[in-house]
Structure formats: structure tokens, C-alpha cells
């Protein structure tokens, strides 16, 4: 008996859970629908809703509940003329009427006022007797005009409705993705990676935010956080972008369909771009930025090791061809002085907070403490620097691109030792001792640009300025900072010696008599020295930003 009662209660609980789940899904659906409704932007869904409400109120209040309705005694020819004109007008000017706020009265306010009148008629609070015949006729013609206008707008808007795109996407692209055994790579705001089968993801257009979203585990996620990928679960376990395949799928469809699916296509392209930037900021730059210098579209890039759940994959993702300036226009939270990883992740965290993903990159356990903060600042400054140098690589000025390649190689190898060595510990000890008078700061992209615009022209001046700034730290320091002073002095000297050694090499040797060769060697020496100067500037600037309030401009 107790067993049976236990089984009954389990079954009851299961039923309750089923009901709870059902109502939860329904409530999420209703909430989603309500959430999508907005007066700010008029979409076909809203127009259809208003049309249906008005039609229902007319049928109830204007036809069923009254003996003499607004449509009694109307001239059929006039009614037909008005209806036809409004229908054509609505159809051809649907875009203008729905997007221009000045016409909102004709789509929302007037139909809703008419609905109100018909409700009054339905509850017989208003009686259209003979004494009000002019008003009755006016109401009749106005109702015909309004219904026709809404009908016209609906027929016009339906041509390019994103929700038509949704239907097309589900019937064309989604089956193709499933057939090709493609997956979606989801790069979350926390920097975590997840893989989903293509049929698990159903993108939907949100009229309110004008974006495509998808639901995963009751969580609404922008569709541009996903990118279609091909997962090779063979020996290499490789994930590679399926963007080119998806582009092919879209291009094989008629142009009108492509137009209807425009938002979906754009979301996929944005997702690809976002993940490309994240590969750069989260995987390439912190771990092996030197590969940036070897970037070449003809040679496959280095595979990045990623962990997805309990599994490890090699991610084969090409370097982004887009400029960061262009990318910023697409990304929602882009401000000038923001960390690029924050922007690319679309992170909800405050910009000054250390992200969980940054702690993971820096191999730190806790975000508390001076050291974590200083390391995060160093990582951000370094990421911005590498991004700037990477963007210079694609410039047409070959000497600059060559310089930047050299800088990337030498700074990336220095950075690994710098971030893992004792330097940061010594800095954190000092900032702790200074009790807030010394602070670490991030050098943002625009600041690096400003430093480099001067450094390209006058590298020695910028170098000596920073050299002096760091030298002053040592001269004015106290004995508590002996170790830090040592590291700073070593940095200054190593940077200086590197430049001088390159400058003092003889450009001509007895074996190189050819003028052409001499010129080439001289140019090579000049570039090496300039690269050494720029490298020194970057290193010293980074250290200085961790010890002082950063000054972007050289005074």
C-alpha cells in the first residue's frame, strides 16, 4: 500500500510538472508576443492585429447589434471608389506609412478610435438614428476607407516582411544545413563556446528590437552570436567555418527570397564576423599573436585549440578581413574607450570589471586582487596594440606593414614572459604600497593610434620621452621597490641596447660590393632599427601605463 501511494504521488507530481511546463511555455510565448509588440515601430504583425480588432468590432458593433448600422444607405459606387483608392494607396505606400511616425495616426489612432465607436454601438451606448444620418454615413465611409487602407498596407508590407523570411529560412536554409550535417557554433557573452545541431536552432524575427533571435533553454539569444560550422569528428576533431557554404545556399535562391531573408542572412554574416573577432581577441592575440605576422590568405592559418563542454577541438577560422572600424558599426555596444573583447562579446559586464574569460586567458583563479586587475589591464593594452598593428598590416604602405610585422613578432614573444614573469607581481606590490596614488590603466585603441602616429614620424623622440619617464620612476623611488626598479631598468636598457646594436652594424661588407645589395641592406638595417624603436616604445608604454596615469600624447 505505501508503495502504491508513493507511485501515485510520483505520478501526480509528474502530471503537475507537465502542466507547469505547459503553462510556462505558453506564458513565455505570450510574453514573447507582447514583448514584440511595440508602438515605436510598426510591423506587419501590429497592423494585422489592429485590422483584426477593427474588423471584429465592426462585425459586432456595426452589423450584429444595431438595426441601422453605419453601412446602411451608403452609395455602392462611392464605397467602391473609396475602398479601391485606399487599397492602392495603402499597398504602394505601405513602407512610408509604417516607417514614418507622422502617419502613425492612420494605422493606430484612427482605427482604435473607430473600434471604440463600434464598441459603444455594440453596448448600445450610442444610437445611430435618423437624426444622426450624416454622422452615420461619414462613419460608414471612414470605416471602409480605414479597412481598405489597412488591407492595402498589409498586402504591401507582406512583400518584404521579415516573418516571411522566417518561413523561407525554415523551408530552404535550415533543411540544407541539416542535410549537410552542419552545426551552429555559439560563442556566449561569457566567452564560452557551445555546439548545437543546426535543427536545434530556430531563428525568429523580433519586431521590437528588429533583430533575429533564437531560444535555447528558455533563454533568448541574438542569432548573430551563432555561426554555422562544419564539425569534423574524425581524428583531428576540427571545427571549420561553413560561411562560404551558407553563402552558396543563399545565392542559389531567387533574389526576392534573398530579400525576404535579408535579416537572417545578415545575422549569419554578423555572427561569422563576431566569432572571427573573438577568435582574434580571445584565442590568437593572447596565446600566439606572432601568427598574425604570418597571416596570408593563401596559407592556412594556425589551428586554435578550443574546449567545448568536455571535448577539445581544433578551430580552423580564417583571419578577419573586415576593419575594426567597420565592425564597430555593426556591434551594439561600441564606444571609443571600451575594451575590444567586451565589445565583441557584447558582454553585459561593466567595462572596468575583469571578465571571467580574461581570468581564464590569464590563468587566474580569482578576479579579486591587485594582480588580477593589473594583468587584465596589461592584457587589454596588449590586445589593443596587436589589433592596431594587425590592421596596419593590410595597409598599402609596405614599409609600415613590414615594420608592424616585426613589431608583432618581437612584442608577442616579450609579452608572454612579461605576463607570466615577476614584473607584474612587482608592479602589484608597488601599487599596493602606494595606497591608490599609483594606478594601472588600459591603453585603448585610439591611444595606441595616437602614440603610433607620432612614433612613425619621430620614433627616437617618443622613445626617449618614455625612457625618461621610466627613468624618473627609478630615480624617485624608495628602497621598497628595489625589485621593480631592477625590472624597469633592465627593460629600459634592453630596449635601448637593441636599437643601438642594430644601428651600429655596418651596412656594407666587403663581400657586398653591389650597389643594389648595399641599398637593400641599408634599407633592411633602417627598418630593423625603426622596428626595434617601435617595439621599445610599445614595451615601455605598456609598463608605464601600469604604473602611472597614462598619457596618450607626447608632450
Amino acid at each position, binding site marked *: 500500500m505505501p508503495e502504491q501511494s508513493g507511485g501515485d504521488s510520483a505520478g501526480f507530481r509528474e502530471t503537475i510538472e507537465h502542466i507547469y511546463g505547459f503553462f510556462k511555455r505558453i506564458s513565455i510565448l505570450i510574453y514573447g508576443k507582447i514583448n514584440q509588440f511595440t508602438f515605436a515601430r510598426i510591423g506587419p504583425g501590429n497592423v494585422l492585429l489592429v485590422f483584426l480588432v477593427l474588423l471584429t468590432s465592426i462585425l459586432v458593433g456595426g452589423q450584429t447589434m444595431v438595426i441601422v448600422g453605419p453601412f446602411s444607405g451608403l452609395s455602392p459606387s462611392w464605397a467602391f471608389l473609396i475602398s479601391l483608392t485606399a487599397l492602392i494607396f495603402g499597398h504602394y505606400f505601405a513602407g512610408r506609412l509604417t516607417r514614418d511616425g507622422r502617419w502613425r495616426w492612420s494605422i493606430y489612432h484612427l482605427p482604435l478610435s473607430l473600434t471604440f465607436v463600434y464598441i459603444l454601438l455594440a453596448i448600445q451606448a450610442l444610437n445611430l438614428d435618423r437624426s444622426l444620418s450624416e454622422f452615420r454615413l461619414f462613419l460608414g465611409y471612414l470605416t471602409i476607407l480605414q479597412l481598405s487602407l489597412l488591407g492595402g498596407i498589409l498586402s504591401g508590407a507582406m512583400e518584404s516582411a521579415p516573418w516571411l523570411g522566417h518561413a523561407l529560412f525554415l523551408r530552404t536554409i535550415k533543411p540544407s544545413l541539416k542535410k549537410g550535417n552542419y552545426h551552429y557554433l555559439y560563442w556566449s557573452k561569457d566567452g564560452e563556446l557551445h555546439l548545437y545541431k543546426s535543427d536545434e536552432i530556430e531563428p525568429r524575427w523580433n519586431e521590437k528590437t528588429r533583430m533575429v533571435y533564437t531560444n535555447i533553454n528558455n533563454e533568448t539569444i541574438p542569432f548573430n552570436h551563432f555561426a554555422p560550422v562544419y564539425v569534423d569528428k574524425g581524428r583531428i576533431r576540427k571545427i571549420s567555418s561553413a560561411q562560404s557554404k551558407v553563402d552558396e545556399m543563399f545565392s542559389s535562391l531567387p533574389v526576392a527570397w534573398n530579400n525576404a531573408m535579408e535579416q537572417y542572412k545578415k545575422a549569419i554574416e554578423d555572427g561569422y564576423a563576431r566569432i572571427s573577432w573573438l577568435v582574434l581577441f580571445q584565442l590568437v592575440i593572447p596565446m600566439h599573436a606572432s601568427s598574425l605576422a604570418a597571416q596570408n590568405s593563401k596559407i592556412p592559418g594556425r589551428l586554435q585549440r578550443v574546449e567545448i563542454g568536455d571535448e577539445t577541438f581544433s578551430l580552423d577560422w580564417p583571419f578577419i578581413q573586415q576593419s575594426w572600424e567597420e565592425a564597430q558599426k555593426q556591434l551594439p555596444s561600441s564606444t571609443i574607450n571600451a575594451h575590444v573583447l567586451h565589445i565583441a562579446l557584447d558582454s553585459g559586464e561593466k567595462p572596468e570589471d575583469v571578465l571571467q574569460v580574461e581570468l581564464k586567458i590569464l590563468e587566474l583563479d580569482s578576479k579579486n586582487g591587485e594582480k588580477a586587475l593589473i594583468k587584465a589591464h596589461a592584457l587589454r593594452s596588449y590586445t589593443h596594440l596587436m589589433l592596431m598593428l594587425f590592421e596596419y598590416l593590410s595597409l598599402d604602405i609596405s614599409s609600415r606593414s613590414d615594420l608592424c610585422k616585426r613589431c608583432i613578432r618581437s612584442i608577442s614573444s616579450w609579452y608572454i614572459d612579461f605576463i607570466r614573469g*615577476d614584473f607584474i607581481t612587482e608592479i602589484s606590490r608597488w601599487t599596493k604600497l602606494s595606497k591608490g596614488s599609483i594606478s594601472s590603466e588600459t591603453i585603448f585603441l585610439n591611444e595606441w593610434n595616437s602614440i603610433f602616429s607620432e612614433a612613425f614620424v619621430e*620614433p*627616437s*623622440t617618443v*622613445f*626617449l620621452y618614455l*625612457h625618461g619617464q621610466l*627613468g624618473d620612476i*627609478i*630615480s624617485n*623611488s624608495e*628602497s621598497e621597490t*628595489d*625589485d621593480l*626598479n*631592477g*625590472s*624597469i*631598468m*633592465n627593460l*629600459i*636598457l634592453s630596449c*635601448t*641596447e637593441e*636599437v*643601438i646594436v*642594430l*644601428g*651600429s652594424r655596418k651596412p656594407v661588407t*666587403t663581400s657586398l660590393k653591389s650597389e643594389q645589395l648595399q641599398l637593400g641592406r641599408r634599407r633592411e*638595417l*633602417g627598418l630593423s*632599427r625603426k622596428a626595434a*624603436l617601435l617595439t621599445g616604445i610599445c614595451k615601455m608604454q605598456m609598463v608605464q601605463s601600469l604604473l602611472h596615469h597614462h598619457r596618450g600624447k607626447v608632450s
Partner: protein
Amino acid sequence: MMSRSFAQNLETYLTQLIHVSNCIQKLNIILVPDDEERCIEFKNRQLKHLLSGEIIDINKMSISSDEQDDDEGTERENNKIQRDFRRIIDEVLHWSDSRESHLGALHARDVGCHSPELSDDCLVSALELHGDKRWCQNCLKHNHPDFLVDKLNPFNCWRRGHQSSKMGFIQLSNMSNSGSLISLKPDRFFAAPELSALLNYERKKKFLFHTEISMDSSAMVAIFIIDNQPLAIDRMREIKRVLPAQLLVSRHIDSSKKTNKSRVKHRDDKMPEMVNDLLNKVHSTWKRRGPSKDSRGIIGVALVNNECEYISNGGLESTIDSFRERNKIWTGNYSSSDLNNGFKKLLHISDSNLPTNYAALCVILDPIIDLGGLGNE
């Protein structure tokens, strides 16, 4: 025969000294030797030229044999270029206020040369002061330290003066006699923050001196605090321990103490030998591996005696005298009480590290540096 532990310690000490010299050479690239405005300006210009790669070595202006063309006409042309260049340099040296950063175009006076041999009409460039020429070598004969007037570094020029106090140092070590063994233990190392910082950085790997910041380091001095007391005390203790065991008593043991100690010293005193070895090795090391190629090694030795009987009795006199004769250097002998407290503070000696019965052997190293800014490499 030299004791093994002393030899080992001395080797380590010399390695450290070479390391200090290397660090000074490195710092010489970026630091000013003199805080005079002209020197700061010169150093800035020089550094900028070095960074820009605009290095012209005046010595390399002469054409080496392998580069000479067989054509006689070209050779004549090259000689003419050299003569013209020399004329230009001579002309530049006539300028009253040269703003050049190249040493070949700077007059020796511009770098503070105060050699009595340098007359006003002498056209000697700062570059000519460098190398195996007489100027900086002979200068040592005319300028000597004098502890009684607080003169530790008698030079005022940019090469030896170190008016900026950024590259000088004072290194303290203890040399003690524990009977059978003489030990050498490096103690504290006083230097400007810059040199101290660089040495500290290296300390993580190999540097053993414990550095402390000193804002007044215009000379390069190695001070050895000599403690030769244990020898006498230990010998006396041994006699006192042996006599009762043999049921012997001596009434004269106290009165004969002085004679006995003196006799023991003469028989077993290893201190002069060790000091001689120390001076010779430090001298040759600093001469060979000092901050400049022109380094003369030890340029002076002074003994500061704080009532040390051993020194008063001339314990190291012959050693120091013979070293002076051999190397033609300055030596001085002072009583600690005769020195000003300020000067003792400069030397970082006080009653705590130089108590009664101790003496300090101050070895003044040649502080010469190269003004070229590229070190001795």
C-alpha cells in the same frame, strides 16, 4: 700558500666586481656622468644619434688596406678627403661653444678635462682623450685623493668626475682572520638608485652583493674592513688552555703577551699575503674589465686605522708600499679619528662597522668611463 676558501671567496668577489663594471657600462649608455647642463644636453643628443643610427666613428674614417683601391688616383683622393676632414674637425674645435654630440668635434675642455698638460691652444678633441694616449693616463699623476680634506674623487671631468653620482659605488667587505683561515665576505653595496636597480635585477640570477641606495656615489671604492684580532686572541687562548693541562703556570704570560703576539704574527701572519693577492687581482681585473678600456685598475689605496694595533705596527705597510711602487699609484694612511664624520658617512664607515682595533683598507678604483656611450664591448 693561499688558503683555499679565501681564493674561492676572492674569485667570487672578482666575478661580482666584473658584473658591477658591466652594469656601469650599460648604464653609461643612458645616464649622464655629470649633472652639468651641457653634459645632460650632450648625452641627450648622443643618445638620440645612437637611436637614430647616425653613428660616425671618426677612427674609421681612415681607409683600411683591404678597402683601398689599387688605383693610385683614388688613393690620393681618399687621402685628400681625410686631410679635409681633419681640417674641418680642427675648425670645429676652435668654436667656443660646440653643440656637437660627436666626441671628435668636442674640445677636451668641453668635457671638463682639467689636465695641467692641456694648454689653451692645444687642439685636442674629447675623442683623443680616449684610447692609449697620454691625456687621461697622465692625469692620474696630477690628481690624488685626500681623505683629510674629504676628497675621495679628485677629478672633475666627465670621464672620471661622476658629478652626477649615478654610476659610482662604495662596496664594503669584511676580511677577518680566524686563526688558521682568512675569510673575505662581501657586505653592503652602496650605489645610486639606477645602478642599484640594475644590480638588483641581476641579483635574482647571480649577484650576491646586498645593494643599498646611496645618493652620493661619485667614486668607485672597494672598502675592506680588516679584523686581524682573532689571530692574537686565539693564540693566547690556546696557550692558556695548554698550560694548566700540563700543570704549568707562567707568571710572565700577561707581560709577555705583546711580545708573544708580535712573534706569532711574524711567524704565521697570512694577512699581508692575502691583501697583496687581493690588491693584485682587483687591480688586474679592474684594469682588464673595468667600465672603460682605458681603466688603470686601482688608482689609490688608503688605510683608515681605528686603533688597530696590527696596522699601527706596520702589518700591511710593506705590502701596500710594494704595490704602490709597482703600479705607481697614490697611497694614504689615516687614523679614523682624523677623518670628518661627514666623510666617514660618505664612505659608509662608522663605529658599528669599524670599531676599535679594526682598520679599513680603501681601494680606490679607476672611475673612468668612455664618453662614446657604447661601453667597453
